[in-house]
């Protein structure tokens, strides 16, 4: 083994969660951050709308309200101890980002500006509250840049364009990872005391998605193969407003600024589904509403899309009808320029990809696969927990979208994910460094790279009849149609069948590129393997949960069933077979009740 590196802490992934972990771990321990993309290209950079914290910069707001909204948003499946921890940390987390130089938009008196977002309310009046701190509509971009910059300042060690293929676990403890250097094709072993996974989500399982090509669930799949369970994988968020067909996200901030949804008949339909907050209801609610409109024939031109309208005339008209006011009490009124100033990127997307100018035209939108609520189970310190008893794997941590703390439960509120990555990224980093201080390096096995190498060999030597592109397209289609917004037994069973068939076909996949340098064909094939594995997990978990809750809506079980299903799913692979277990939900302050917006 020529390429062995030794670090106290190794972080896999350089998105918001990975960088935050890296930053904090590196203050106390020798740390490396490994990423298959250059850090600034991580998908955190795509996040638009904002990061939530009860700063109260415009109007009264409290962490307790934030907590309640999150619990309610999660359809009571979120762990309330973790949620309370996160919403209490939120204010300091956002202020810390500001202290690191993040260029938030400002209020007239120079403080961090905030905007309303779906599901965030003033608990006393039930009205939307301005809680999302934002930097125009590129908040995630600014978080990613700022954290990367701070890592450079603090001289964190980066392994850019190294893709992690395997996790090394010895005596039940974390011992490092194996990665391939993309530019040479060489395998490297990174020997470490603590390993933090922060590899992001797996939205590329679905046909229409806002997620990056890199979102292939590598971290979750790698750990699954090592017997670590995954939690609540049936819960996947469909964002209501993706650009028709392409799935590119139109931030909820558009509705925060007053945008409304209009069906094919030209009617505003959200008041039917969420009489009090209307277009700013939580995402699962809005996605289902759009889907219902389309199913009942009120899509535009009979097609499967509706309009999002942010033209100033419409915004002002509906704002007057809703009685919406500015912080100073005057009626809410915006101009085309203000829309442009607050949502420049969105306007740009529409112009480039649709040839539509949102200031004078309505945007065609459809729900798009967006966010992975489930993932690697952890506690609020980022430690990976494998069962209901809270047993942790020594030295193994996870944070960010690949982890399931679970603060998002069955449905994530907008802006809570950016909060999640900075808060739990930080604690995972701190804990990992702390653990590394007192732990010893496990001795590496003779051939730590064996698993990774044989996975590559198998792909290279496949019989070559099957094609990666085709399998992946068939997978995406099946998952989007049958394990999408609305689900039922029959469709999901068919999808599961299909996934298993594709897994078999995948064994015969052909990789023609035999080179080592930037063999992206081989890497894409390996990633498809992960997607197939995760898809099976999702379909199984979803089939198993016989109720509707948050992002998981079953036509055959339309009601939430707290008696039988107020529990987390834990699904693990034992001897090549998936096995389902459960974990209880932490309920501290808020007893489950019906969820109406």
């Amino acid at each position, binding site marked *: 083994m020529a390429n062995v590196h030794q670090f106290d802490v190794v972080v896999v992934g350089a998105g918001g969660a990975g960088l935050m972990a890296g930053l904090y771990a590196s203050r106390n321990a020798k740390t490396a951050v490994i990423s298959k*993309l250059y850090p600034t290209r991580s998908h955190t950079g795509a996040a638009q709308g904002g990061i939530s914290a009860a700063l109260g910069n415009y109007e009264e707001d409290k962490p307790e309200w934030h907590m309640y909204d999150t619990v309610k948003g999660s359809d009571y499946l979120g762990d309330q101890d973790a949620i309370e921890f996160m919403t209490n940390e939120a204010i300091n987390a956002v*202020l810390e980002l500001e202290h690191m130089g993040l260029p938030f938009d400002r209020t007239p008196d120079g403080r961090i500006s905030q905007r309303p977002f779906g599901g965030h309310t003033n608990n006393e009046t039930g009205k939307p509250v301005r809680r999302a701190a934002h930097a125009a509509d590129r908040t995630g971009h600014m978080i990613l*840049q700022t954290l990367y910059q701070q890592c450079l300042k603090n001289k964190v060690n980066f392994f850019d364009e190294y893709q992690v293929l395997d996790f090394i676990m010895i005596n039940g403890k974390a011992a490092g990872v194996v990665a391939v250097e993309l530019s040479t094709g060489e395998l490297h072993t990174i020997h470490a005391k603590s390993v933090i996974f922060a590899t992001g989500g797996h939205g590329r399982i679905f046909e229409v998605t806002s997620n990056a090509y890199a979102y292939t669930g590598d971290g979750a799949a790698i750990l699954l193969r090592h017997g670590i369970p995954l939690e609540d994988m049936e819960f996947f968020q469909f964002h209501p407003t993706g650009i028709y067909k392409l799935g590119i996200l139109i931030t909820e901030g558009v509705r925060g600024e007053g945008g409304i949804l209009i069906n094919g008949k030209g009617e505003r339909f959200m008041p039917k589904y969420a009489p009090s907050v209307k277009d700013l209801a939580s995402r699962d609610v809005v996605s289902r509403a759009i889907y219902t409109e389309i199913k009942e024939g009120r899509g535009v031109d009979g097609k499967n899309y509706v309009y999002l309208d942010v033209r100033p005339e419409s915004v002002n008209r509906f704002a007057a009808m809703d009685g919406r006011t500015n912080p100073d009490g005057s009626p809410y009124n915006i101009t085309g320029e203000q829309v442009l100033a607050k949502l420049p990127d969105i306007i740009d997307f529409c112009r480039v990809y649709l040839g539509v100018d949102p200031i004078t035209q309505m945007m065609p939108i459809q729900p798009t696969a967006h966010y992975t609520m489930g993932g690697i189970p952890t506690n609020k310190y980022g430690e990976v927990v494998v069962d209901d008893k809270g047993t942790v794997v020594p030295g193994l941590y996870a944070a960010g979208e690949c982890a399931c703390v679970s603060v998002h439960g069955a449905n994530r509120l907008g802006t809570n994910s950016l909060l999640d990555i900075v808060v739990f990224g930080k604690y995972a980093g701190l804990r990992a460094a702390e653990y590394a201080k007192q732990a010893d390096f496990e001795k590496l096995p003779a051939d730590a790279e064996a698993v990774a190498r044989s996975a590559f060999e198998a792909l290279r030597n496949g019989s070559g009849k099957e094609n990666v592109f085709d399998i992946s397209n068939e997978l995406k289609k099946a998952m989007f149609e049958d394990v999408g917004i609305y689900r039922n037994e029959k469709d999901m069973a068919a999808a599961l069948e299909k996934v298993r068939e594709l897994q078999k076909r995948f064994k015969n996949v052909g990789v023609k590129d035999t080179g080592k340098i930037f063999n992206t064909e081989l890497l894409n094939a390996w990633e498809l393997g992960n997607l197939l594995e995760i898809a099976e997990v999702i379909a199984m978990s979803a089939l198993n949960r016989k109720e509707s809750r948050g992002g998981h809506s079953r036509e055959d079980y339309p009601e939430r069933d707290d008696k039988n299903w107020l529990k987390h799913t834990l699904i693990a692979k034992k001897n090549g077979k998936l096995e389902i277990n459960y974990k209880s939900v932490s309920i501290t302050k808020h007893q489950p009740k019906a969820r109406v917006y």
Partner: protein
Amino acid sequence: MEITVKIFRYNPEKDQRGNYVTYKVEADENDRVLDVLEYIKGKVDGALAFRRSCAHGVCGSDAVRINGRNMLACKTLVRDVGSSITVEPILGLPIKKDLIVDMEPFFDNYKKMLPYFINESPLPENGRERLQSPEERARFDETTKCILCACCTTSCPSYWASGEYYGPAAIVSAHRFIFDSRDEAADQRLQILAETDGIARCHTAYNCTVACPREIKVTKAIGEVKMAMMTGKLD
């Protein structure tokens, strides 16, 4: 419709030099050039190598030269470039394979700019945010948009002439901090930019501004930094 795509191919393990290969494929006029590349990779030649991630112009992975001009493949639609498309790697960086170039020199230049917030003064006593007026914030908004895609630097004739030039992207990053009213290290960055391979190597060729997929007025940003150097005014 059927389109013709001519792509620069180079396999470091086989070829001495690059060559062009032409593909004829079906595409919709609303497809992204990235979709076309994905299709060719998926169905015609899996070995075709290029970078990509977000697929909607926010990560900066897929800067390439399309019909002779730097663009992001994911932000360029077939209808914008016509049915005969030439795709080549960006200029001025070593080519690793096909459309993939070595980004290290680019990021090295970026890192020279102290591209991080520097303010060693004590935080506000109440522990809250440092104040900044909306106007002060607006002063550097433009350059916060940069996604480090390298479209600008690799379109710059001055950078083609000398790879030692820090390049427009690095200066854009410096601009973002120099004009941030909260930052305290504008002087250090200006000193660095005053070096031989610094800002004086910009001859206002303007290619950078045209190439920037984030529509940052790069030349203007550079001009503002030059004037800051001359007058010392940072507002």
